[in-house]
């Protein structure tokens, strides 16, 4: 009996057969896996990696589309650091990014807190749709409508300002206000996105924690800052990173509203790249600026992840 139950050691031939069978099926599984992810990787290579490689190559050359390319080495990069317009564009971009990240996240959080209540189903739906709708409408339409709102002489914003005794503002024509106008429009448009994301986070906070804190005498603000906010910090971190990357690449809002003007007062770095490449036909120089933007965004994202270790709550 014991002999029957004792496992016999497999022969070497059997071991080879099993090994071959296993390798073959593992190999097939691996091949199947690669085939499934291949389309995504091909698209990633074609539309993400390859353009970066081409831009890097272009950045080392002088090219204007109409004449042969000439090797320029790091001349374009030297010019990037010496060009005051690049610095102005980057400064505008950082101001824009900082403002919209804070604005969209804070207002998105407030709105999420407001709609995270026990309303009737229809009321719930209407409120959430009202705040989310601007996010899904294309920027071109939004910007055209807001350009009318911001019109200095016939815009509705200045009309109401004049009704309360204030002078109209050159929202799009005054260099002190042009960037602010774009910021306001961008915050209004994107609150819906953070609202939806943060709302999901709020709804995942266990009710018992809040109830227990309230029973223990915590005020509303204490519950919010000590329990809710830490628990939704991963969601807020995601919003920060996502909005930062998008804001650093802002183009359409600025192009439609102000085209980067007056002067360079509202010009973002991507608008500068576009102008340099497609208006001045300086593809090499534009590519060099674009590569610096890639590096800046990478550094910013890494910094955000570093700092996140200090304030993001991970269960």
């Amino acid at each position, binding site marked *: 009996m014991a002999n029957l139950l004792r496992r016999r050691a497999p022969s070497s031939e059997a071991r080879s057969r099993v090994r071959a069978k296993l390798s073959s099926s593992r190999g097939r599984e691996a091949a199947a896996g690669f085939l499934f992810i291949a389309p995504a990787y091909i698209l990633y290579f074609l539309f993400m990696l390859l353009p970066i490689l081409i831009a890097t190559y272009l950045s080392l050359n002088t090219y*204007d*589309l*109409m*004449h042969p390319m000439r090797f320029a080495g790091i001349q374009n990069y030297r010019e990037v650091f010496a060009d005051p317009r690049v610095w102005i564009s980057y400064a505008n971009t950082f101001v824009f990014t900082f403002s919209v990240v804070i604005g969209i996240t804070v207002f998105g959080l407030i709105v999420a807190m407001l709609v995270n209540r026990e309303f009737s189903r229809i009321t719930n739906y209407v409120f959430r749709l009202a705040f989310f709708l601007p996010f899904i409408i294309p920027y071109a339409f939004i910007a055209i409508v807001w*350009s009318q709102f911001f*019109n*200095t*002489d*016939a815009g509705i914003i200045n*009309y109401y300002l*004049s*009704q309360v005794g204030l*002078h*109209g503002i*050159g929202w*799009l*024509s*005054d*260099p*002190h206000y042009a960037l602010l106008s774009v910021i306001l429009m961008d915050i209004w448009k994107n609150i819906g996105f953070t609202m939806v994301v943060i709302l999901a986070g709020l709804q995942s906070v266990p009710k018992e924690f809040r109830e227990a804190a309230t029973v223990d005498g915590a005020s509303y603000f204490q519950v919010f800052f000590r329990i809710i906010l830490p628990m939704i910090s991963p969601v807020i971190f995601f919003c920060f990173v996502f909005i930062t990357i998008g804001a650093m690449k802002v183009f359409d809002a600025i192009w439609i*509203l*102000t*085209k*980067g*003007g*007056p*002067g*360079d*007062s509202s010009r973002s770095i991507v608008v500068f790249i576009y*102008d340099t490449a*497609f*208006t*001045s*036909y*300086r593809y090499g120089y534009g590519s060099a600026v674009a590569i610096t933007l890639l590096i800046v965004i990478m550094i910013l994202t890494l910094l955000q992840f570093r700092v996140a270790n200090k304030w993001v709550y991970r269960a």
Partner: protein
Amino acid sequence: MKKSTALLVSVLLVLSVAVWASGQQDNSSSGKTVVIKVKNFGSDKDAEAYHAAYLKYQEAHPNVQITDTFVPIGTWREYTAKTLAEAAAGQAPDILALASESIRQIHSVDLLASLDDYIKNDKDASAMLDDISPTLRNGFVLGGKVWAIPSFWNGIYAYYNTDLWKQAGLATPTKDFTWDDLRAAAKKITKRDSSGNTTVWGFAPDMWLNGLSSWVYSNGSDLLTNDMTKSNLKDPKVAEAFQFIADLINVDKTMPRPDADANANGQSWTNLFANGKLGIIYGGHQYTQVFMANNFSNYDVIRIATNGSHTSSYGCAAFSITKSSKNKQVAWDIIKALVSVPVQTLQSSQGTSIPSRRSVCAGAAFLKWPKNAGLFYGLLDEPDGFKPVTAPVNYTEFEAIMYRYVNQVFAGSMSASEAMVKADAEIVQALARSKGN
């Protein structure tokens, strides 16, 4: 079975090749189809007129197929940029509509075919060219060769609202209407309500580079030298012209503040004028289309105000043939059709830009309105009537630089003198780069 399958496949392959070959033979025996690609721009009305011309030509020439990429007018910068990008990608059309703003830039990249031989060998050509003002034709002559045939154009004129003029007690403006006269008239016409909001504006310029050039010309200066290869922005008269406009906006407050988009400004101000909310507007003949659509007829047209010179600016569209076209003769025939009297007469009746043919502009359809409509084409014959819009070989970059600084002057954030000095530095560098290529 396997052998029979192979035999069946072989037979099918041979049959399909035979069918394909016979199809090819059928095409060539009935006359080779010639496909002509046209890239054009203009308004909806222009598109209609050209479409009618294509249909008529194709009826007479059934083996010719015309495909038209018609682009609504945005900015010349964008149109030129797209054209050059398409050419670099090997997608240049056979017939390319271009303009005074882009001729030097497009010519500099060797995109165009000279039309001299087609003109010389065509017995109808001289009658066609004699009907077009030399001022317009010469805008497309570079290096002694003809590169395009003018189709339609626009000069910068001053439209004034005759009712608002009378209400303000102003005398009918004459040929010698000066900048000071304009400033005084704008102040008298401008009205504000009790809250200080302007209800009627005195004046609005044309914000395209054509319009801005006209201010500088009327001050006896230019943005570049006559050969358009060097900057002239340091001439104090240039800054004086832009400061004058800025003062109308920021000091007199008789002009609406412009936004970033020149096209949008033009549309908005034309509507103000057509609704009796603006006393004087500078612009081209295409504004009459808006006035007609609004049933607005209380206006007349005069020359722009002078400050030492009567010269205004014009921009002209023209048809050219690209070097890469494989059907240049057919393209030339189609160009003649597109600038023919019937097509231009149709365009002139719709209030679009001014046809290039003198005979069409002398016709009743063109002259029916406004009262002074003879001025539109007539000014071309005056020695100080018009100069082409300033358009160097790197026009797209030049326009971007000019707008960037002029908008700051109009916003009141920079004086015109300071702006022109800075713009000059950038334009000198930009022109040097364009020569270096």
